[in-house]
């Protein structure tokens, strides 16, 4: 099965007290082919996937009017709120240097207001791991397409 290997990235977070940099498992996604790609962190400990609410308007979803699939209470980045979850379609971009085409998939994605994390999307068990067989080691994220 073809693998896409995404090297972990330093997202500019403050270094640890011993000076070591934080490197995150990062992939790149877009709302559609013509949209600007956003960095997303893959987190196997997260039960759901969540994104900055801005992404939803790019997907044609009106958070104030369109009914979500469901809502979940969530704490993320220090703040707690009820989170509407929608069914959306995203494009996973190939890793740097690859000539492969992006992959489209449909996932459940929660919309978070007041996002303050260094990535615009957080992929968890539902939305990512239920679609992509993924191996994360100390250096890279390997994704079976």
């Amino acid at each position, binding site marked *: 099965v073809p693998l896409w290997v995404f090297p972990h990235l*330093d997202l500019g977070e403050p270094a640890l007290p011993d000076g070591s940099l934080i490197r995150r498992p990062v992939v790149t996604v877009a709302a559609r082919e013509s949209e*600007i*790609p956003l*960095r997303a962190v893959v987190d196997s*400990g997260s039960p759901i996937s969540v994104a900055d609410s801005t992404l939803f308007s*790019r997907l044609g979803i009106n958070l104030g009017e369109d009914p979500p699939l469901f809502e979940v209470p*969530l704490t993320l980045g220090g703040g707690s709120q009820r989170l509407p979850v929608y069914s959306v379609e995203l494009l996973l971009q190939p890793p740097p240097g690859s000539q492969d085409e992006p992959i489209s998939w449909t996932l459940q994605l929660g919309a978070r207001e007041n*996002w303050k994390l260094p990535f615009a999307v957080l992929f968890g068990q539902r939305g990512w791991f239920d679609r992509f067989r993924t191996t994360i080691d100390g250096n890279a994220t390997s994704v079976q397409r």
Partner: protein
Amino acid sequence: MDRTILDKYRGRWVALRADGSVADDDEHLNDLLDRLEENHAVEVTVQRIPLADEPLFVGLR
């Protein structure tokens, strides 16, 4: 990421070129994306640069 340029952009959304340089930045993600699309920006990737004293994100609950 070129850490020598980080301090200038902390707390802002940035569009990064493949070489790690910043093509554009904004306080608001939507405004940055709108401008990038108007300018037909290609081969950039967008993320937020965290503040120097922001707590470390370790999980979702």
